[in-house]
């Protein structure tokens, strides 16, 4: 029931995120990328499945762990690498960096370095859509840690009483930095918080790109008919520590092994081979294209200039 082309598209995105994060971590280790860097490794299926289920003009708001959302929503990796390297050809002219990439042309309203802050912004985008009747849906990505902040319940409640076309996806990777979810809540089934506010909510396997896709697609259709909002709790796990300098030693090995065994990239590849009937060679071709594109992106970023101080001053003129 899925075409080979569709599954290939999903796999290409999954693999792009994997390669982007892995290569950029190397650049970080070489000292070429500075500041905070929170890899999306292990969580790729959520962004890819969700963004495949909505339209290019629909909105997303993202987090500090935002590279995957950005790529899934349609960003060009060369402008992302340039941003991470602080270059003027980057999405934010090098002013924002990893935690602040926004790509308005494809509805990505931006990553955010304040945990939870992207939630009310998403509510606002959905509010604007409902006022303008533009038929757009907003998908907000947050993680378990953010769901403990006051803005979570306030925002979800607003979305509920206003019937907004909003889908909040809680990427439950079971950690906020090193704090396991069991230490930060007495009810670790986070979808129940949506239910408590009268919002249709569902807990799903966040490592399965097709499950994410189907769930978001269904909810998005309801949203467009004025039947929002919705909440999805997507269970997943980071492949490493909180950020590139955190070895994540507190993450139990058995758990990590389990989630490695249900790695979203591996499963996406399997889907393409088995459900899509693609050949090994076709899959390898996709991978080679992604890798080549990434190397070009790195060359582009490295050969780009930094924003000149005078141009910076022109931007903040009148601030």
């Amino acid at each position, binding site marked *: 029931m899925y075409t080979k082309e569709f599954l290939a598209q999903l796999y290409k995105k999954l693999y792009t995120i994997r390669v982007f994060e892995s290569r950029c971590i190397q650049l970080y280790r070489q000292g070429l990328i500075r500041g905070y860097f929170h890899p999306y490794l292990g969580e790729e299926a959520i962004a890819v499945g969700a963004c495949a289920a909505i339209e290019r003009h629909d909105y997303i708001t993202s987090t500090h762990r935002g590279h995957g959302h950005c790529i899934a929503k349609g960003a060009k990796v060369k402008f992302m690498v340039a941003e991470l390297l602080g270059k003027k050809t980057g999405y934010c002219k090098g002013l924002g*960096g990893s935690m602040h990439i926004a790509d308005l042309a494809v509805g990505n309203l931006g990553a955010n370095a*304040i945990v939870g802050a992207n939630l009310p912004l998403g509510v606002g985008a959905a509010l604007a859509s409902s006022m303008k009747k533009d038929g757009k849906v907003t998908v907000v990505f947050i993680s378990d840690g953010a769901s403990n902040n006051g803005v979570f319940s306030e925002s979800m409640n607003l979305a509920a009483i206003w019937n907004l076309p909003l889908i909040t996806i809680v990427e439950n990777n079971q950690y906020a930095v090193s704090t396991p979810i069991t230490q930060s809540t007495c009810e670790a089934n986070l979808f129940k918080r949506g239910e408590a506010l009268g919002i249709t909510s569902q807990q799903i396997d966040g490592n399965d790109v097709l499950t994410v896709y189907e769930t978001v697609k269904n909810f998005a259709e309801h949203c467009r008919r004025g039947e929002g909002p919705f909440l999805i709790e997507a269970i997943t796990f980071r492949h490493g520590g909180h950020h590139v300098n955190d070895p994540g030693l507190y993450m139990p090995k058995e758990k990590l092994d389990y989630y490695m065994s249900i790695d979203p990239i591996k499963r996406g590849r399997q889907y393409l081979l088995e459900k899509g009937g693609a050949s090994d060679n076709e899959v390898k071709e996709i991978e080679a294209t992604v890798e080549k594109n990434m190397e070009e992106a790195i060359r582009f970023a490295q050969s780009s200039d930094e924003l000149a101080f005078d141009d*910076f001053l022109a931007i903040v003129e009148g601030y």
Partner: protein
Amino acid sequence: MAREILYREALNEALREEMRRDPTVFLMGEGIAERGGSYKVTVDLLKEFSPQRVIDTPIAEASFTGAGVGAAIAGMRPVVEILFIDFTMLILDQIINQAAKYKFMSGGKAPVPFVLRSQGGVGNGLAAQHSESLEALFYHIPGLKVVMPSTPYDAKGLLKSAIRCDEPVIFLEHKLLYMTKGDVPEAEYTINFGQADIKKRGKHATIIAWSNMVPRSLDAAAKLANEGIDVEVIDPRTLVPLDKATILASVRKTERVVIVQEAVRRGGVASDIASIIQAEAFDYLDAPIEIVAGLNSPVPFNLSLESRVVPREEDIINAVKKVMYI
């Protein structure tokens, strides 16, 4: 006997000593217990004290800060940590409407022995939401003490006083200072609020600076000394209360003033200190007061640009030369 320790170790010692001394002292914040804090200030405290006194919180800043204020009102001495000063924007009601006014509104009856520890400033490309210097926001609010130590010695002595203080204290560290070293005595000591420290004596001009602008001003002063210019560097250490006497005495001596702050220029503490000096020592001034401050801009991610939005050593040197008409 003094030994050299890190700023972050000095803070750790202050917390440990006060927790040993007073069972009502407890700590709250994100990742402060098991992990020992993002900048390792609270490292190993969980080994000595119970999880009830070194509390890891969920990401619920407004509520755990408010809970700290409430616990203070009810007789505890909480030290609440907010990872980055940028995130204190989430707790302003609890600080400004509650902590700062509680004693006043209760007719002066109820002390609020509450300490907020946070850190600010630029450092290594953390970008616009992790790099701000926001002391002026708290400085503006009656009822709050504002402390900004620049050395390990000051950090320890002032944090101990902050914890013993019966009024809410905003204790602001700097991310680039945590790994700096300095002499700290083995023996116990505290530093009273409202006592500036003259970090370098001099006669030609007065530099007033706090937090990470103190070492930068001292570097500038060393370069100026090579050119025969002898500046005095004053660190107020506490912005509220402000040691006007030490500042004014220096102004009357040197008759030239440069104030250096990392925070953006508009509406900053430097402007307020300048206004105090001109009101109380106008006749002594030989030149207009120079303020060296951050640009009125959010902090950019790009490192070269980041270094341009806050005062550089050369900016401080130029300002001193300007007030000396050199």
